[in-house]
């Protein structure tokens, strides 16, 4: 199927990050169209009609989220752009920020206008030094050209956009933790309800959207909801950036419509890295999502198809593992990540993540006992659903799915007192 690149259309062009290059290829026409042809309320309806689902991980329809803002309150509304891309295996937002910041910026302006926000924050993870520099420059260009600030493009709409750098905390990608961090505090997720759309930043109604979601808003602004909804599959509309990493020949970001078969994506990425090692498993949506063994990999990459397969599209950070991968080692690595990144606020996650690491370390080192496999599964079930934020699920799901899909391999670590693959490699 021939597919014209939409989100990545400007990539690879010279100076793609500059305003001049962006406008030369038709940039900011969508914003002009929106200002001319829509009212804010109508544009919210347009985004709803497009079926655009959030690209940050949960896949919640963006227009519906905007609709949750309470009406008639005399308090400011805020838009926070979630550029705290920290999910292992995900690097799509970074690509957009570094290579086509104005595509994102246009979407931010259109969205802020739609929801009536006059101060927006661009929360970018602290490690993205280059991205923050580029985006800051893009903002300065936009201010200079009247695309930000007072009376944008003569529409009478005012918007200030502030780049806010995180400082190294995965949890700040969770939207309420992001708000806490933006308020200059420890990034501890808040209890919900109230949801941020009602009580958010500084206690005011706040919308938090992912970078890629807002880039998609630009596309909707340019060509309309009907066109957008025709891409992909029903209820899973629009183009999507897929991050393919791990044991493939050419890891990278690949754009495709939602609903592309997983195998096709792997082919796009050049197939397996080593021809002698076949596919063993794929994590389709960043390390928080459940793993799919090779046998279950004939799926379409969209929200609903993956949900039906028992996992989730998440942030579309897909990593591929070949037959040389030890699942216990892989899970140990994943759990180390979560133990390191748990905010430590609520009990199950704080204590559970550390416990997983200890059990898995024992298993991998050959000190496991037969009950450990069941213990992992059971502890995960006690973390899942009992935490303040979805971090609990983000660690419980991989643990549960790795154990479920590769139980024999876990058992083997116990019976053979160590990692069979490591032993084979040592021989």
């Amino acid at each position, binding site marked *: 199927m021939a597919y014209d690149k939409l989100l990545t259309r400007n990539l690879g062009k010279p100076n793609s990050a500059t305003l001049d290059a962006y406008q030369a290829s038709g940039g900011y026409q969508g914003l002009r169209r929106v200002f001319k042809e829509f009212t804010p309320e109508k544009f919210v309806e347009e985004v709803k009609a497009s079926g655009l689902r959030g690209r940050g991980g949960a896949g919640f329809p963006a227009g519906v989220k905007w609709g949750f803002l309470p009406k008639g309150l005399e308090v400011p509304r805020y838009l926070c752009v979630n550029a705290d891309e920290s999910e*292992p*295996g995900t690097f799509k937002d970074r690509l957009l920020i570094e290579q086509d910041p104005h595509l994102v910026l246009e979407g931010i302006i259109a969205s802020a206008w739609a929801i009536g926000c006059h101060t927006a924050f661009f929360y970018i993870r602290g490690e993205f030094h280059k991205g923050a520099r580029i985006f800051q420059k893009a903002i300065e260009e936009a201010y200079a050209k009247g695309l930000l600030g007072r009376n944008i493009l003569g529409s009478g709409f005012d918007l200030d956009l502030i780049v806010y750098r995180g400082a190294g905390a*995965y949890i700040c990608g969770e939207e309420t933790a992001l708000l806490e961090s933006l308020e200059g505090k420890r990034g501890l997720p808040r209890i919900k309800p109230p949801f941020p759309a009602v009580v958010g930043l500084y206690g005011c109604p706040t919308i938090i959207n992912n970078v890629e979601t807002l880039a998609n808003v630009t596309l909707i602004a340019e060509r309309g909801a009907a066109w957008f909804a025709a891409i992909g599959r029903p209820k899973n509309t629009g183009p999507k950036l897929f991050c393919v990493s791990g044991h493939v020949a050419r890891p990278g970001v690949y754009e495709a419509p939602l609903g592309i078969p997983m195998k096709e994506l792997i082919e796009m990425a050049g197939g397996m890295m080593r021809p002698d090692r076949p596919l063993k498993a794929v994590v389709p949506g960043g390390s928080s999502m459940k793993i799919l063994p090779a046998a279950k990999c004939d799926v379409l990459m969209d929200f609903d198809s993956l949900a039906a397969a028992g996992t989730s599209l998440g942030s579309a950070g897909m990593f591929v593992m070949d037959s040389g991968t030890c699942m216990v080692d892989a899970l140990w690595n994943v759990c180390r990540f979560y133990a390191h*990144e748990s905010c430590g606020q609520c009990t199950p996650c704080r204590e559970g993540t550390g416990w997983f690491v200890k059990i898995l370390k024992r298993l991998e080192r050959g000190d496991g006992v037969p009950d450990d496999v069941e213990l992992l599964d059971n502890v995960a079930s006690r973390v899942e659903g009992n935490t303040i934020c979805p971090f609990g699920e983000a660690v419980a799901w991989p643990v549960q799915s790795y154990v479920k899909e590769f139980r024999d391999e876990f058992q083997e670590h116990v019976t053979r007192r160590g990692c069979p693959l490591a032993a084979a490699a040592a021989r």
Partner: protein
Amino acid sequence: MSLPVSTETDRQIDGLLGRFPQRGSALLPALHLIQAEKGHIPLEAMDYIAGKIGVSPAFVAGVVSFYTMFQQTPIGRHHIQVCCTLPCALRGAGSVMGYLERKLGIRRGGTTPDGKFTLSAVECLGACDTAPMFQINEEEYGQLDERRIDAILASLK
């Protein structure tokens, strides 16, 4: 009392205070500024910034200790942050780390005696397409192998 930061940083921090709807938001940017100047965030600076923003020093220290990018003690001039999370680990982050440890003669978390390099294992840096990779201060280096690492380290003063 002398300022624990330079007058330039102090001026920039004053500028930050009015920038946000609430003063508290200035904390993270201010800490970034202090770290940019000092290389780490000394206790006196935490006390100073707490007074500026109107929070308690303990709160500031709590924030500093929460975010991994804030250093509480001085580190080497070049901070080598090796991504060790799964997508990088699948592509050999372990051997990159092992090579660096042998080459620099320090363990992860350590600093070379000459204060040139600090080696850290960090979690996903969002560059899995270039795995295995590391970040030195603000620059990223991907597709690492031993030859490339040698060349990168040799180019650093």
